[in-house]
């Protein structure tokens, strides 16, 4: 036996020596405590010690003390390296338990997977990938829109697989239960409009027109827009999370296998509920905004209640209500569509449900903004 070559150890609780056993053979001698908490060596550090001419590796563990899985983990990495280099490994010098664990670890062949993780992508690549993803997602969005249209067709011909009770429940959820948050936000928006308007109108001595500004602003634009954004955050996200969780639990698959359309059963009541409740919420939002304007006018700018009321009645025309209500309906449809789309498209993990909810809100607000711009241009050209 040749002289032992200490790999490392020193003051540590473990020690490891390498002994040359004639030509092409090396013995690793383990001693001391080989436990995870003992700052054990990495098997990778040993690779450089095994020269090219080595063909056989044996072990000696008579002086080995306590060990835990840190020891076989070290040996497993070493064994993988030896197999790659064509070095024969003789495990007979290891404790029986270690040999058993190594046998179990190598009982199932390693899955060879390549290219699982790419490196960091440049901004250019990320923007390109996001653009491609967006356009790849378009057919799916149109397909979903088509399915909803067909579902509405089935509803009007009385063939939709759909429970009226679900519609009432959804209407309650998206309408009355949203009143509190709509009240708070729209009251504050009305307040802001009144202050903003009063400040400008005071310069030309036309403060009483605060009522016109607030009434038209809230009924025609802000009521619908603010309600749409509130509902996108509240109801759109909830739709995506509900349907996403159903996707994770395979509930949507269960509908499909029974021949029940998940669009009829799950999506249709949600879209209908929001389209029906959004105009009412918009109307309510407008009323709350005007109430805030009244409060500001009375307390800060000394305008009487009757004067504010008369001015509001003179300012508001039916067309303003029609514009506000139509916008509310469209925004409601957009929010319901994006919430249900992202929910149905959801992956099968908890993380995917979170992503679906986030995406539903982003898509909902984006669609509201786009439709608000388009409707404003259309109504302008129609002279409404």
């Amino acid at each position, binding site marked *: 036996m040749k002289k032992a070559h200490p790999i490392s150890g020193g003051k540590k609780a473990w020690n490891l020596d390498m002994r040359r056993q004639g030509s092409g053979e090396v013995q690793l001698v383990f001693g001391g405590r080989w436990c995870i908490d003992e700052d054990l060596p990495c098997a990778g550090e040993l690779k450089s010690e095994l020269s090219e001419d080595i063909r056989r590796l044996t072990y000696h563990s008579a002086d080995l003390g306590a060990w835990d899985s840190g020891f076989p983990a070290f040996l497993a990495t070493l064994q993988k390296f030896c197999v790659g280099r064509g070095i024969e490994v003789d495990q007979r010098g290891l404790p029986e338990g270690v040999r058993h664990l190594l046998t179990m670890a190598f009982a199932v062949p390693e899955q060879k997977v390549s290219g*699982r993780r790419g490196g960091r992508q440049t901004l250019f690549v990320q923007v390109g990938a996001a653009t491609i993803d967006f356009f790849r997602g378009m057919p799916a969005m149109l397909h979903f829109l088509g399915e909803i249209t067909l579902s509405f067709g089935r509803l009007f011909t009385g063939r939709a697989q759909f429970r009226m009770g679900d519609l009432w429940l959804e209407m309650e959820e998206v309408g009355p239960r949203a009143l509190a948050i709509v009240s708070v936000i729209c009251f504050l928006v009305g307040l802001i409009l009144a202050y903003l308007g009063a400040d400008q109108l005071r310069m030309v001595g036309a403060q009483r027109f605060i009522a016109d500004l607030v009434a038209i602003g809230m009924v025609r634009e802000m009521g619908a827009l603010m309600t749409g954004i509130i509902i996108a955050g509240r109801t759109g996200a909830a739709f995506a999370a509900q349907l996403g969780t159903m996707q994770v639990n395979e509930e949507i698959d269960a509908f499909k296998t029974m021949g029940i359309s998940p669009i009829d059963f799950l999506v249709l009541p949600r879209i209908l509920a929001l389209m029906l409740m959004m105009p009412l919420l918009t109307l309510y939002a407008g009323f709350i905004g005007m109430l805030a304007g009244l409060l500001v006018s009375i307390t800060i700018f000394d305008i009487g209640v009757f004067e504010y009321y008369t001015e509001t009645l003179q300012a508001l025309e039916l067309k303003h209500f029609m514009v506000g209500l139509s916008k509310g309906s469209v925004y409601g449809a957009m929010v319901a569509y994006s919430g249900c789309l992202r929910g149905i498209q959801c992956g099968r993990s908890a993380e995917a449900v979170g992503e679906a909810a986030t995406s539903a809100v982003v898509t909902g607000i984006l669609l509201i903004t786009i439709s608000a711009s388009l409707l404003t241009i259309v109504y302008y050209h129609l002279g409404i």
Partner: protein
Amino acid sequence: MEKEPHIKIHNLTMTYGDFIVQHDINCVINKGDIFVIMGGNGCGKTTLMRALVGLQRPAAGTVFYSGEDFWNGTPEEQARLKRRLGIMFQGGALWSSLTLAENVALPLHEYTGLPPGRIDEIVSFKLALVGLAGFEEFYPVELSGGMKKRAGLARAIALDPEILVIDEPSSGLDPLTARRLDDLILELRDSLGATIVVVTHELASILNIGSSSVYLDSETRTMIATGNPREALKSGEAKVRRFLTRGEA
């Protein structure tokens, strides 16, 4: 040789609101035992397991780990005792935003000062032990139910816990993989000296690996038998024998 008691379940009663799931459970689990909690569906096996691992406070009674009272301990004492446990949940309970390697590595990063290279070695070895070598970079969503369960076991044994608690290890696994998992549980006990608590109603597993057991009865809502399941099969309580023979005894 006299065995050393490791876990003592003392007068444990578990409830959900006013509903008593199980009452007056008393057992001693010795060091190196593979202790099987068995019983029919809905008898409270998983509830007992949750009380054992500190997830659900019992309505009465407590659990002692090496003589230390868990439920009457301070939060710091409870946290220290929990570090001695490794838990495999029924569905794996893997963190979906992390890869398998990251799932197994997280407790090693949190509780050891090991360098990354050494952690990678241990992670690869633990995944190989459960037959998932090469799956390090996979996310849980990309795995089957059985693979998630095995990955959950790899995470549970990451720190070589002295007590390993496993909820339904064999359910949903093919017979060969289930057998392999049983062998691994035996090996973890024999090689690393772990005490293992298994919640299951898989008969093959109970008889293959169980060295002691408790049978929870859903009618009387308490334990009706303890001891070695193979002995219970021969001469135990009639209800337990019926359970262990699929109603044929």
